[in-house]
């Protein structure tokens, strides 16, 4: 079984954030926004499991797929040393994507940290009336892909935790203020759980369509091992759904944070 892709380009986007452009007709032809690939960072026993990384952008004409990741552990650290021309074993595309908006609709995305990457792909594939992006980063230096977001969204709001750029503090504050005045048709969110919880709750209360993309540690990445559990509503009770197969995108009202 072969999931090999060829690396067309690598780029350091900022301190600790890297982009890898894969050449893969298999992934490029099938991918939809919100899906991920499960990559092998080593051939050996170090960083043994595959690592799930969201698809950040797809160029169908050239069959390339961009993934962007943060170096934050054994596996992603190994990924940083991959170079142009190398082979990367990437299973996918995996999981369920976002529901794309209709032409006349107005949408907002709310992303934080590494959660912004799948949202860029969503925005670029959304051909609708109005797109607003709310993005949160730790600090000015951590901001990435700002130009790309700027090009695809009519309105871009950035917040930094330390106030070094844009709004000072969490991105949920400007988003909630905006939501007081506006009524988007769809809201999409990906990032830290506390952020998604606020966004999801506000949208559910107002009856606004909202989808969030969840993260969980994975084993198989395809729904066979049941380790990537995520608590969801089941009538009056709860169940554990699985992020890799039932998600990573879930309707906000289904989730129990």
């Amino acid at each position, binding site marked *: *079984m072969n999931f090999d892709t060829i690396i067309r380009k690598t780029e350091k986007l900022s301190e600790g954030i890297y982009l890898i452009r894969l050449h893969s007709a298999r992934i490029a032809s099938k991918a939809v926004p919100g899906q991920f690939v499960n990559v092998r960072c080593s051939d050996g026993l170090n960083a*043994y499991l595959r690592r799930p990384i969201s698809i950040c952008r797809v160029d169908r004409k050239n069959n390339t797929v961009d993934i962007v990741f943060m170096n934050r552990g054994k596996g992603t650290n190994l990924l940083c040393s991959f170079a142009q021309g190398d082979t990367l074993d990437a299973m996918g595309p995996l999981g369920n994507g976002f529901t794309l908006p209709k032409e006349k609709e107005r949408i907002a995305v709310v992303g934080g940290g590494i959660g912004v990457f799948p949202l860029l792909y969503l925005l670029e594939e959304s051909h609708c009336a109005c797109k607003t992006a709310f993005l949160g980063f730790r600090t000015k230096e951590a901001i990435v892909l700002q130009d790309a977001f700027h090009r695809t969204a009519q309105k871009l709001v950035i917040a930094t935790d330390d106030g070094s750029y844009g709004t000072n503090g969490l991105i949920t504050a400007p988003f909630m203020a905006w939501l007081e005045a506006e009524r988007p048709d769809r809201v999409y969110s990906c990032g830290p759980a506390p952020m998604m919880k606020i966004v999801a709750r506000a949208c559910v209360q107002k009856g606004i369509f909202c989808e969030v993309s969840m993260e969980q540690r*994975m084993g198989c990445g395809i729904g066979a091992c*049941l380790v990537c559990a995520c608590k969801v509503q089941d009538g009056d009770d709860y169940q*554990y759904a699985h992020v890799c197969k039932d998600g990573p995108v879930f309707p906000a009202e289904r989730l129990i944070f």
Partner: protein
Amino acid sequence: MNLSVNFAGLKLKNPVIAASGTFGFGREFSNFFDLNRLGGISVKGLTLEPRKGNPPPRIAETPGGILNSVGLQNPGVHAFIREEIPFLRQFDLPIIVNIAGNTPEDYCAMAEILSEADIDAIELNVSCPNVKKGCLLFGSTPEGVSEITAVVRKVCKKPLIVKLTPNVTDITQTAKAAEASGADCVSLINTLLGMAIDIEKRKPILANTMGGLSGPAVKPVAVRMVYQVSKEVKIPIIGMGGISNGEDAVEFLLAGASAVMVGTAGFVNPGVWVETAEGIEAYMKKHGFGKVSELTGALQE
């Protein structure tokens, strides 16, 4: 070349079986390869009633392996029969049903129900480290294994496999207990109880604190246990624990196993089951073996 094996009332076209809990009910991996190429499937551990399983995180990566604490999340034996058997029967694939319970009555009830179902064997899981009651408790002592095996044997009309836990001082004792109480076969090893700690948070990584270790890291322990058990029992053995390729599988066969199960390695390489069977075949060709059964216990000592 003919890779078929025939033991304990099971006819497998090759000796490589998907290990319980790592392969669901086959649906997911069927999108990646032809399940007809498997020797068999041991399905996700079932209980009488559906079980929700443990809270996440349920997995931690450790050197050369993983810890899991899924906690037997499953739809229950009835839903399995209704919804999963018809799917699996599309393939030429022996179905081994892995079952777990809190009480001897649970095990018996399931064995009775499954004896009437269209399946090929029952694998008693008396070794799950991830549930509070029953299960591992029974598997930890020869008396516990005897008790469960004997009561299930009375009602079970299918080949009966008892899956042993490595979390004991002497696994030959529990193996002998299973044999004496009517098991047709033993499978080993289930996961080794383990733990991993996030030193920054000063908390266990698994929400359930402890979990079961599997993957390449456990292989030498598993081979040793298969070897020891093969010296003490006459019933066939299914060996598992950390198998990633044909060579690994051959180690288990030489140590005394009649077939192998492969699990964790499939998370990294979904081709592992097919490649393991091919690797066994290549080894047999190279060394002039005509039948897989000639490898079983063929260790030169």
